[in-house]
């Protein structure tokens, strides 16, 4: 589904990603871990098409398409979804209106007519139930005054509504208490299928207790320095990032 080859990217003169290689197949869950500043969020931003970052080299292939040539909205409409680490507050637009607009736009891109409002509301109610979201939430303004947990739940709610092929969860566990974490993880697990894939970006192993990854990668200094199975996350939790980073620092010293 996703092939990233030798991806180099940064902001202005500061190169953050220094040659990322990653392959994600349908049905797989990949976890990308790493200490702060290693480039985790940059990677997710570049995949989603954030124009603040400049791609200096390499390529990203997504289901046969050169992702780097597509606008952010085209990437989304091809099935890429980014759950933001810091979801943006948009006063004046209700959650329901926002989601209706994005679903309508996605369908427009696919040459489909808008979903009747009645059906859309029914679908929203189903997904709200999946994520234990309370009534009244739909009419609130998008992320405005939401707690950290509510914002993250709102991201997963959008993911559930948009049904992406590839979901990137950027630090979705940060700001979540243990109950919210369980609900969000449960939602992600239920949305999982043989046709979609998930990349979980996280600093801690915590979320991976609930969403078990097929692969774990350690990102450090803009490179994937170690890859393994789910057990790698436990090992990292036990030994700390130093275990990997010291070795790496020696190599580049």
């Amino acid at each position, binding site marked *: 589904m996703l092939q990233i080859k030798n991806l180099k990217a940064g902001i202005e003169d500061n190169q953050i990603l220094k040659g990322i290689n990653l392959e994600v197949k349908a049905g797989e869950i990949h976890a990308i871990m790493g200490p702060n500043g290693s480039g985790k969020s940059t990677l997710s931003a570049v995949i*989603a*098409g*954030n*124009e*603040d970052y400049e791609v200096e080299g390499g390529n990203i292939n997504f289901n046969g398409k050169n992702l780097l040539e597509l*606008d*952010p*909205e085209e*990437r*989304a*409409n091809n099935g890429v*979804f*980014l759950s*933001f680490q810091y*979801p*943006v*507050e*948009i*006063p*004046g*637009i*209700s959650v*329901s*209106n*926002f989601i*209706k*607009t*994005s679903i*309508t*736009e*996605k369908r427009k*891109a696919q040459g489909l007519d*808008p979903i009747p*409002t009645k059906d859309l509301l029914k679908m929203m109610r189903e997904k709200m139930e999946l994520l234990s979201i309370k009534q009244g939430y739909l009419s609130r303004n998008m992320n405005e005054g939401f707690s950290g947990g509510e914002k993250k739940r709102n991201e997963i709610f*959008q993911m559930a509504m*948009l049904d992406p092929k590839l979901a990137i969860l950027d630090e979705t566990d940060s700001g979540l208490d243990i109950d919210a974490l369980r609900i969000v993880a449960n939602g992600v697990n239920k949305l999982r299928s043989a046709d979609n894939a998930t990349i979980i970006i996280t600093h801690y192993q915590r979320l991976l207790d609930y969403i078990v990854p097929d692969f774990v990668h350690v990102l450090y200094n803009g490179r994937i320095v170690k890859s393994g199975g789910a057990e790698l996350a436990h090992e990292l939790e036990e030994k700390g990032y130093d275990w990997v980073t010291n070795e790496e620092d020696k190599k580049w010293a």
Partner: protein
Amino acid sequence: MGLIENLKSYSEGVQISDEKKKVFTSFMSKGFPTTKDEEWKYTSLKKIVTKEYTIENTGEIIDSSTVIKYSLGFENRIIFSDGKLIGSPNIKGVSINGFSNFESNTTDSVLQLNKALAQNGFTITVDKNTVLESPIEILFFTNTENNFSQYRNLISVGDNAEVKFVERIQTLNDSTSMVNNFTQIHCAKNTKVEYNKIQNNTPGSRLIDTVNVYQEQDSTCDINTLIFGGSFTRNNLNFEQNGSNCESNMNGVSILNDNQLADNHTFVDHKSAHCRSNEMYKGVYLGNSKGVFNGKIMVRPDAQKIDAFQSNNNLLLSDNSTIDSKPQLEIYADDVKCSHGCTIGQLDEKALFYMRSRGIGIEEAKAVLTYAFASEAIENISVEEVKLLAQKLLAQKLNVDLDFSL
């Protein structure tokens, strides 16, 4: 030749009272305001009044499909065609008549002109205790080419009455038209009045619109102004609070492009204690458009415990658009709460990316954010049909196919 000469020769051919003649002479000695006049500093009438206009209306008949096209579909409709009152509803507790002579404060030359020569307009009297659920819709149509028309309207709302209005001024041809519209509203004790102005006229039309509101105690009056069309729009909105516990609310949304100009001039005269005023004006400027906002709040010495709020927020979405915004607070009482704020900005890039990452195209994302920006003022409108129209026109103006309702 220009409008002044057109008016002069018109005045010579009509029968008007000596008093009106005097007022007209006063207007002629001053002429139209210029940018040297403080209240017109940022808004020039020069290009507008140097043009030729026809003053006399021919009173052409319009067909019902035209009315339907521009109406929001309310049952109670007052319809003018070229100044002639051609439709007026029968409503229990409300008397609706044509033009009447009434006293008004006319130091302003534009209002003097209106007082001297206006021969058309409506007079509405709402009996006390009358509560109307459905708004009264007022449609002014102009058929005549290059027409200059004036309306002079009076609304008197009796004690405890509640009434809403929706007004639209519409030119039916591509020519350059100009309207000088004046409406005086008297809100008696404990009344609730809402007046919605839909200003979406043709690209060739110019408008000077003045509303003077006189409020008695416990009354609430809302004036909502939606500016989408017309090349030139000047709105003067003056409130006078003459009793305690009055509330004056103003909401405005302007979405302009090309060379459009819209100027909202508001004045709230807090003459009594324990009153409130709220104004929220949102402006979105594209192309070479220009916005002006001037909001004056006067709190007289005896008007204690006043709560006055004013905000003017602007989005400049092009390099060549401009806004001149001027809050003016004159406070002579010491126990009052007055706040005002003005912002000028662009769309939030982070929010744009967030929306695009959800599959919303860049133009649509901009439109959604613009709607979000304006929505606070739109939400304050209580007439659902007006709200929906505002959403529709906003999408149209931003050239996107979006529906903001759910």
